[in-house]
């Protein structure tokens, strides 16, 4: 490959035809309230683990839906399942069940 003195960066666009939507379907089946999320970020703002680590429920939620699973398992391990996010969610999303089921689905 020739070196011209510059690089081509990889695009950040997400091709929804290429990721595995069955993981999202399985999550929706296990936690139907998953689809009620409006992305307000209340869960992330109140998260105890988020204050101590780089754990971010909102980001994980979006990434899972987009099929971006890289580094996901380590992220999910930061959650202590305290359930504070569940108390503040204005839409009643069962966020604890979301985290537990994401772990199960990713494990196989």
């Amino acid at each position, binding site marked *: 490959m*020739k070196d*011209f003195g*510059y*690089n*081509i*960066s990889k*695009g950040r666009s997400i091709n929804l035809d290429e990721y595995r939507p069955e993981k999202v379907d399985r999550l929706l089946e296990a936690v139907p309230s998953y689809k009620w999320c409006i992305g307000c970020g209340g869960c992330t703002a109140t998260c105890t683990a988020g204050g101590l680590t780089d754990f971010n429920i909102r980001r994980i939620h979006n990434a899972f839906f987009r099929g971006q699973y890289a580094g996901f398992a380590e992220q999910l391990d930061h959650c202590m399942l305290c359930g504070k996010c569940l108390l503040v969610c204005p839409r009643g999303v069962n966020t604890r069940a979301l985290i537990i089921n994401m772990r199960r689905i990713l494990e196989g």
Partner: protein
Amino acid sequence: MEKRYWNEYQKEIADDHYFYERSCIRQTFFPGSEAAFLRILRDELGKDICDNPHQHTCTGIGYHSDVVPFETTMTVVARLFALMTEAGYENYVPSCVTSFGVFSEMVEKWEHDPELLAKTRQWLWEATKREFNIPKNIAHPSDIIYKNRFDLQPKMKYQLVNRFTGKPLRVVEHIGCHYAKIFPDKGIGKAEFPYVLAGMIEAWGGEVIDYPERRHCCGFGFRQYLVRENRGYSVSNTKKKFESMEPYEPDFILTNCPGCAMFMDKWQYTIAEMENKTFDHEGYGIPVLTYEELTGLLLGYDPWTLGLQLHQVQSEPLLEKIGIAYNPGEKYKGISGRLLPRPASPECLKQI
């Protein structure tokens, strides 16, 4: 029925008596296009167009790269308008999309700031002892071809149809950003639904491809390109477009901007060299044509007179598909009739 929003907006395009201004990039990389435009206007449409030998740059590249001050650009533009005024014309036709954007911007600025116009007149007088009128109409050459597309169609020898399958050729149309993204009302169909090239393709038998990154920049971007270390921004943009259009298998790309034609053509070689990737099945690349080259080809002009051999991606497979006659032996023949040296062929991007 689907609503076609572009129908709501058609810009005013002068009918005759044009003053032509050539493009810096096109004269270097696509010299046949401007000659073809003048030939089409004079010989096919019978229009009057002035090609003044005293013209010069509009400063567009330097202006958009922040190396030419705004006042300098205004005065240079004023000098070009002075040439038009002295030649007795009122309809300005800049070959380059960036020039078109620059002229539209200066005229808009002068309309809102008459004192600035007075200053520009003074600067031009002090520097050159010339005076100028603001053009009554500024139209891009692609606007003029678009306006006359149905008059040209009966004169055409070929149609945009694949002669092997009988199906319309699938075409990606790419409009330069400075055509309608700066001043949407200066473009046919405004910025969101520019129809200037799509109208030509549909009128001449082709099919326009609507792909996700259709309105994305070609990657030129002036500052992104000028410094070598920054060129990754430019080529990454172009690659994003190619990746987006690749699944639709375009037969060729049609552009109305010098920068777009150059970068979408040349970067195909660069991407092939850096990543061993081409965006067609056979490894030849996707041919990129200017609208004058396309019009000329369909009218039966010789591909080598139009300058297609100067493109990075060679167009013989496209000529075969349309059924255009060409002589391979004359591909590299100069104006004097002598054969020029054959250029080197890269291994990563197949050449004919």
